């Protein structure tokens, strides 16, 4: 699903990623950890083509990001869904419109959109809010809208950047359930998180840690520290 070798990325003189080698098989479930400013978001932004590959080779979901032209990136993004750390939802539109958006741009028929969006909203306890404007939502509700929009298209690869930062324990667990469900049906999932509770829940899962731009492998030890 993802094959990366010797990826290096810098913002001007600020080095964000340094010689990262990373491989992720189809159907894998990976946690991406690391302190604030370690480069997690930068890493994910490269994976879905929001930042260019400056140095190294990156291959995601069968697309070679070194050569993928701007005009074809939407094909990559139809296979790779992202939950952004800052949500990136349309605050002046309804919850329904936001979640329906990725289906709409794929030209999917209206009645199918309706059905799939309703189902996803229900599973995230957002069905009451379907017709609310997103700017009227609480922080946690907005975060769930971002997750709903990412999973509604049943992507091959899901990148979630800190998807539980504004959620209480119960909802965080609920969200992990949903991720696990998608995982069971074959979606590869990478979650960047600081939340130990949700990691502990997935004992044995693969964990990669970014630190000052370099990557280290590991796995969740049941009930313990990383």
């Amino acid at each position, binding site marked *: 699903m993802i094959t990366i070798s010797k990826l290096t990325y810098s913002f001007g003189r600020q080095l964000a990623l340094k010689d990262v080698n990373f491989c992720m098989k189809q159907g894998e479930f990976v946690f991406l950890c690391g302190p604030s400013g370690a480069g997690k978001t930068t890493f994910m932004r490269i994976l*879905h083509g*929001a930042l260019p590959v400056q140095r190294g080779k990156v291959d995601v979901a069968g697309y070679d990001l070194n050569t993928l032209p*701007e*005009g074809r*990136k*939407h*094909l990559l*993004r*139809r296979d790779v869904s*992202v939950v*952004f750390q800052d949500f*990136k*939802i*349309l605050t002046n539109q309804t919850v329904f419109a936001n979640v329906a*958006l*990725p289906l709409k*741009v*794929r*030209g999917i028929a209206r009645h199918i959109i309706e059905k799939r969006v309703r189902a996803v909203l229900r599973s995230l306890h957002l069905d009451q809010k379907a017709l609310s404007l997103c700017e009227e939502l609480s922080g946690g509700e907005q975060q769930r809208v971002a997750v709903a*929009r990412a999973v509604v*298209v049943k992507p091959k690869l899901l990148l979630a950047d800190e998807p539980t930062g504004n959620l209480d324990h119960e909802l965080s667990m609920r969200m992990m359930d949903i991720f696990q469900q998608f995982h069971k049906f074959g979606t590869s999932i990478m979650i960047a998180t600081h939340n130990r509770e949700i990691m502990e829940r997935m004992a044995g899962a693969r964990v990669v840690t970014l630190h000052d731009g370099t990557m280290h492998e590991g796995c969740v030890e049941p009930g313990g520290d990383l």
Partner: protein
Amino acid sequence: MNVFFQLLGQGIRDLFRAPWSLCMTIAAITLVSFLGGAFLMLVHNLDLQIGARQGNVQFQVFWDAQVKPEEVRDVWAGLSAMEGVVNVRTFTPDQALGVLAESFQKSVDLEWMKGRSPLPPTALVECELPAEDGKKWAAAMVERLQSLPRVEKVTFNPLQVDLLTSWVGLTRMAFWPVTGFLLVVVALVVGNTIKLALLARREELEILRFVGASRAYIQFPLLVGGAFQGILGAGLALGLLKLLHNGIEEMFNVPPLWMNISFIPPMYSLAIVAILAAVGVLSSLVALRN
């Protein structure tokens, strides 16, 4: 196809999200294309005049100042029946005096001279010059007019045609620079609106890209918006131009011009709309590129 119309509607709806900005733009485009249209109308009418007068020549006939009105009246009636004559305008001594008085703009009162005008009766005879041997024919015409009763003098003046032609040439020369300038202004204005709209929606467009919208899906509504502004502005400008035309249609239909102003032909109107739509689309494209 469904998506096509959906995006079409989207492009227009998006414009109305910033109605103020839209109004200002439409107003600017309308003003500019109105100016352009008025200029085009001028050129068109000069063209028509040229076309009507091309190859024509005017003979000026002066009668003896002492001739009786009744005597000339019969001759005048016969003038237009002469071979090659296209148009005849005549001035009695009093009419000539009236033109003189008008030229003083009423600051000199010539009323008291009425009935004893010192000016001679005059006629302007416009003839179509035959394609060949024009000069010879004109000389013969002068002779024929000279031989009319009590005519004192006949002159003819092909110069007028040359003057008009050269003026039209000048306008033609100015045409492309002026049109180009106006189009650049329209492009800037439309581009500016689209750019502002893009700025306001930068985040929204980024989100669209991130959820997998193709480039066409994102850009098409913006191009539609540009075209719409161009077309709306052009339409309004044509409406205003028609109003102007109604106002001035008869204005120059007075001595010594006798010009009936024509509206620009439908093809030109269509061209204006098409060009402005194209400029709208192009400037949207440029705004998108940056």
